[in-house]
């Protein structure tokens, strides 16, 4: 990881502090406007929790950041680099978006591991084939990462033979293997049985503690309050309120946020 860091070009001082900057992001599916002008900045080392009711646009916002959804309009800047967009919001420079995506690692609600590959093969896939890391080096690193998420003995197992919690931890190892500058989590624990949630949250908590930049969509309010340093509340495609966890959870101003918080806790 440290060696990989050393190869990335030294960022210039001010812009480098902004890991992700989203400006006036709009997204419609047909007639349905799901995001109505969202702006958000995450600095290096920030852990931003995104909360909100079902259908409020949390996933859409997160997925727009790496262009898994094509925004309708807006500006997205990743690590100081503005993503070039066509007028219709689709990325206009395929190379650029592919390069940027390698720095944004996504962890999905449904894990989305490649089922025909073992955990080890899952973890080395992107480093070896996309980032062209020498295979031996990638394998060594993959073993370290699997060890770190508590799956050191499962390297040669296929995902289908693992519990949801184990699969999600493997997905986190896969994301870490690209040494991402930002990690995007979309409800990483919502598909898990209650007794498996804890093991995944422990891994994410560790990552937060070591200063990783993360955007985290979650329904785990206690967890958000504990690990995030910034909380964003989305309501029907707009940011209704944002601030430090103490402010948002301890002293919510908007009526809707108050209602939301009382409904989920």
């Amino acid at each position: 990881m440290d060696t990989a860091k050393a190869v990335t070009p030294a960022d210039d001082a001010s812009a480098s502090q902004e890991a992700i900057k989203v400006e006036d992001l709009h997204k419609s599916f047909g007639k349905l406007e799901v995001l109505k002008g969202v702006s958000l900045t995450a600095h290096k080392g920030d852990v931003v929790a995104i909360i909100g009711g079902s259908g409020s646009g949390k996933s859409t916002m997160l997925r727009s950041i790496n262009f898994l959804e094509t925004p309708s309009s807006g500006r997205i800047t990743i690590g100081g680099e503005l993503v070039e967009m066509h007028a219709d919001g689709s990325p206009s420079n395929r190379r650029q978006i592919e390069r940027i995506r390698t720095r944004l690692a996504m962890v999905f609600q449904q894990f989305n591991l490649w089922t025909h590959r073992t955990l080890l093969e899952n973890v080395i896939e992107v480093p070896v084939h996309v980032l062209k890391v020498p295979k031996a080096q990638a394998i060594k690193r993959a073993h370290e990462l699997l060890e770190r998420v508590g799956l050191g003995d499962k390297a040669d197992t296929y995902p289908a033979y693992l519990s949801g919690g184990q699969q999600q931890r493997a997905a986190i190892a896969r994301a870490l293997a690209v040494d991402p500058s930002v990690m995007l989590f979309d409800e990483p624990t919502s598909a898990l049985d209650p007794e498996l949630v804890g093991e995944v949250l422990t891994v994410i908590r560790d990552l937060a503690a070591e200063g990783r930049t993360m955007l985290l969509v979650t329904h785990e309010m206690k967890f958000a309050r504990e690990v995030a340093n910034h909380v964003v509340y989305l309501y029907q495609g707009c940011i209704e309120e944002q601030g430090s966890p103490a402010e948002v959870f301890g002293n919510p101003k908007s009526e809707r946020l108050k209602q939301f918080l009382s409904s989920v806790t």
Partner: protein
Amino acid sequence: MTGLLDSLGLAQSAELLSLSPPGWGGNLLRGLSHSLQIAFGAYALGLVIGLFGAYGKLYGGKVTRDLLAIYTTVIRAVPELVLILILYYVGSDIINKISAAMGGGRVEVNGVAAGIWVLGVVQGAYATEILRGAIQAVPPGQIEAAKSFGMPAFMTMRRVTIPAMMSFAVPGLANLWLIATKDTALLAVVGFNELTLETRQAASSTRAYFTFFLAAGFLYLVVTLCSGGVFARIEKWARRGQPSLKGGSR
């Protein structure tokens, strides 16, 4: 040994089927070898057409999709025997026209190449549909994950989509292979000396119809059985990582 065959009245058959003349066994095996060459070639061509066809149908523009719809519909609607006659005569006609236009003479169309072309086009239509269904059965999340890590589209196809769809495609593709081996028999109508034509010739010159057609049937059966074994292994490989329905371990 000879005594046993004699007593069963099979001595004559054994003689007829012996590999060296005056036996016709060598001819039959040569026919089989031609049949297999064509089946292999046509199958491979069909898979390539099928892969492009499937991707074209799923991700192509409107014109591409319409053309592919016409292709798969027409090929699957018209009886194969008719298609073979059409494709064979149209194909050789076009080649001769081109040759004449360039000032050349009549071209003798190579039988194996013509067979591969004709059956390959037929196989391609079925392969397109099999592979299209298989690609659609791949969980979209797996393709999305590849995309989210910056994997380019072609690499995603090669590293994620194709391996993941294999388990859905293999049973259909195994069927298609067996059809390919048997469809080669239809090429007899255009005078190509594959197994069926060789058999018919041997049978009519010796009047031993039963012996030769039984032998040919046996050869087709052997091909089918061997293919079954090979495809069982391929399927097992394609299904790696998927717990079997019967339970048990990897």
